[in-house]
């Protein structure tokens, strides 16, 4: 077989694999930050204050109720990259520069979500019940 045919087959394989991933690769159930922020007006927020102990968030496990607003703040003990707070599965990412800065959202689906700093050095679990 000529190499041009092999080249054609290579491209065919790459396009097939990419097409499959593209079509099937859409995530389900991820919430949008904009939608989450709008949930704040629905009721009193569940306030969560995180500290920093042993270069990690403390507490490392936080339980909240679904469909009720959550307000997260980081106290003055948190510094460095841990002030860049993210919950990847909920599409949330915000730099909380001071203890007064708040991250508010409403988790709609029960489950366990990992929260972490932007570099993944500090992390913990947000359990939505």
């Amino acid at each position, binding site marked *: 077989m000529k190499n041009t045919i*092999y*080249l054609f087959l290579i491209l065919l394989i*790459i396009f097939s694999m990419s097409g499959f991933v593209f079509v*099937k*690769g859409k995530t389900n159930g991820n919430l949008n930050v904009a939608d989450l922020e709008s949930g704040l007006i629905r009721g009193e927020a569940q306030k969560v204050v995180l500290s920093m102990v042993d270069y990690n968030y403390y507490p490392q496990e936080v339980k909240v109720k679904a469909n009720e607003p959550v307000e997260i703040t980081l106290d003055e003990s948190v510094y460095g990259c841990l002030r860049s707070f993210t919950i990847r599965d909920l599409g949330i*990412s915000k730099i909380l520069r001071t203890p007064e800065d708040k991250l508010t959202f409403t988790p709609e689906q029960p489950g366990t979500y990992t929260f972490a700093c932007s*570099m993944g050095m500090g992390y913990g679990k947000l359990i939505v019940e």
Partner: protein
Amino acid sequence: MTLKEFFKELNGNRVEGELIKTVFYSLLTSFVLLGIFYFFKLKYIGDFVPKYGLFLVFSALGYSLILLPIRQVRAYANLPCMSGMMVGMTTGTISGFLPGFFIASTNGMFIGGVFGMVIGIGIGIWTGKCCGIMGVMEGIMAGFMGGLMGAMSAFMLLNDNLKIATFVLFFISAVILIGLNYMVYKEMKNEERKLIEDHSLTIILTFILVIVTVLLMVFGPRSGVFG
């Protein structure tokens, strides 16, 4: 002009003429294996394609390119010292960087770094030994550095544009590896080929690499960030 000759030789009778076939056989092996795994096991894993699909496809593409210098260098057997060092360094770095990057994207820095270093050092030594101890040393150092660097880059990009970075880094790695093929051709175009082999080594290596990658990515240990 040598570059023109190189592209012409990709369709010729030398080892360079077999490089496209090597990519094809490697991709075909990966494609068939991933397809079998998917239909019998992986499709039952929740969010499998969104979580792992892109990284598995790029792993398969990466392995098909990493196998190119292995075939080319084995065909010529002995290279001049400087060329051999460049071969060891380039293959060690890229074959450590890409697997480390893809595994760290799904499993975290530790497992990605270790896997990247093992693959990078292994392939770095294998290809670098064509010019003796200096090439071997280059291969070890480059594999060590590439494996850790790939894993670290992926981990630091987790909350950034990781998927776009995957495309960019793969493209750069592909250009580097094809550049290495050109360099080896330029250095060795007047030399005789020492080893003639079929594509069984390509298929076996791809088979092993894809299986280990799938096992690690889907069922392997993860760092705490991945829950």
